[in-house]
């Protein structure tokens, strides 16, 4: 059903434009003056220098989890790269020196420009080796090569940046459970 939208009847002062124009100019000048004098009140984020404050479960840049000895927890099973709809993960496997473990990644690269941040790799991983909880949501660089991150970059994270309740990461070097985990490992317990 058609609805008639009545045009608002303009008053005399509105029809001669000038009063309304000066009111508009006052509004915009107010914004300009506030921006110049009070930079702290601006509703902006200095992209890309400042990372936004986002929750931990936001699917952000990946990281590779570590064993207590600092080696990657990944066993190069290709589950993540198989699950990946964007085919952005490329893995090269090699033999692991540890007799308990069959393989380890010689190369583990993620092309962040291809990645669609769906989180399927995290779900596919059988040993919780890859996570997307770094909270690094803004990725900006001058070159495309920078966006292809390798194993070292994926494992370059600090346990202090992650919550203490996260026991998995606390077993990593620097974590509160590190010493105990290392003792368990040396005692030959299953890990």
């Amino acid at each position: 059903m058609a609805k008639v939208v009545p045009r608002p009847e303009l008053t005399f002062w509105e029809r001669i434009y000038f009063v309304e124009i000066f009111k508009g100019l006052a509004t915009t000048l107010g914004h300009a003056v506030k921006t110049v004098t009070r930079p702290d009140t601006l509703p902006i984020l200095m992209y890309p220098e400042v990372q936004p404050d986002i929750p931990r479960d936001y699917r952000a840049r990946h990281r590779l989890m570590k064993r207590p000895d600092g080696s990657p927890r990944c066993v190069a099973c290709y589950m993540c790269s198989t699950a990946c709809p964007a085919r952005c993960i490329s893995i090269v496997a090699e033999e692991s020196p540890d007799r308990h473990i069959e393989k380890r990644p010689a190369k583990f690269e993620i092309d962040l420009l291809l990645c669609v941040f769906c989180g399927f790799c995290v779900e596919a991983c059988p040993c919780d080796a890859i996570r997307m909880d770094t909270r690094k949501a803004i990725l900006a660089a001058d070159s495309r090569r920078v966006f292809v991150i390798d194993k070292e970059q994926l494992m370059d994270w600090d346990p202090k940046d992650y919550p203490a309740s996260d026991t998995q990461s606390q077993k990593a070097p620097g974590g509160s459970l590190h010493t105990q985990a290392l003792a368990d490992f040396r005692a030959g317990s299953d890990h």
Partner: protein
Amino acid sequence: MELREIVILALKFSLVMIPFALVPLMILMERRGAAYIQDRPGPGRAAIQIGGLRLRAFGMIHNLTDGVKLFFKESFVPPFANKWFYILAPAIPVITAVLTPALIPWFGPFSFLSANTGKPISVVGPFLDANAGVLALFALGSLSVYGVVLGSWASRSKYALLGGMRASAMMISYEVSMGLSVLGLFLIVGSFSLTEVVAWQTTHTWGIFVQPVGFLLFLTSMFAETNRNPFDVAEGESEIVAGFHTEYSGVKFALYFMGEYCHIVIASALIATLYLGGYDLLPFDLSFDRRITWLPAGPYDARFIAAHLGGMLAFVLGATALLAFAFNLLVGRRSRNYGRMAASDKAARLREYGFFRVLSLLAGLGLAAGAVAAYLLIKTAPVQGQIYPLSISLAVAAVQIGVVLAKTLFFCWLFVWVRWTLPRFRYDQIMALGWKVMLNIALVNLLVTAVIAKLVMK
């Protein structure tokens, strides 16, 4: 011709380049103004690295990168375009932008004694002091629309042609009310010469107080004349792609762009000259009120500036020093604000802020010291007769150029300010406003002015 006269002529010629010199400032003002009005900090990524210091120079580097980009782009001519007119068209706005400032009086007339003959040599404000200066200026200013129309036609693109037709139709409508709105002022002054208009304003009062309606009409017409918001239907990017310069890129687009900004500067200078007293300091002689004792009696013309040269310089330097201190304060606030953020480039940014804080503090202190020194040291005694030494006359001219530039820059800011405040008019609304409203008001204004002028001025 004497050597000093030739040097003065060369200096006057350099004044013709003022609009070109102000174009980078206009672009910066446009970007910053847009940003500040929209609650953003504005351009601040392009930077030059000097040693450990990353200088962004308030966003000026963006102009440099724009220039490099546009000048090194391929000079492309669409295969369907009319090649020669396509290349010729962007030059027309630039040519008019070079010619028109020659007619604007940037300072008041003065004379000095010739070293050879001992006779006074008079120097006038504009480079060309034409009797019908205003008419020549309007004629040249209106020529810039030929660049728009020719370029749009030569592009052989429907969108460009639509933009060009809009521009020409709008120009025709608004030239009429523009001409009629200034006629009232010329009726009162009794001359078409711009120097005469400013001289009349110096001895009486500014045009804006004599012709307030004419001022508003002229200002509005100038917005239409320069194709600025809310009258920028020639570009109308939401309707006709980019309007008349749809097919233009690279250096030819840059020429259009430069011509447009030059036109804004010239329009601002013209408004300042016609209605805000040009190089005149103050609109009224305030000495009629005996309570105002700190201000000496007027009129505030060249003789006034010459007699109080030290005080004038002290005022100008002191005001600049205050600006430097305000800048220091604002940079400090930005620095503290940035220090609170967890930014990846914090160190470089804070170093740059620190550099500008030190620089502005030193500049402010230096300017303040200069102001005090100028007030104490420069004493000019009133000279009997009209002819001052050349040095004092040149100093007076410099102060007057500063006054014109200050007024011009205010109107440049007004152009930016209005652009980011008002939406674009619809095309039929523009036509209705031009023909049904402004033309009638201009005619009535002219009639009333004529009657009053006849009754009052004899």
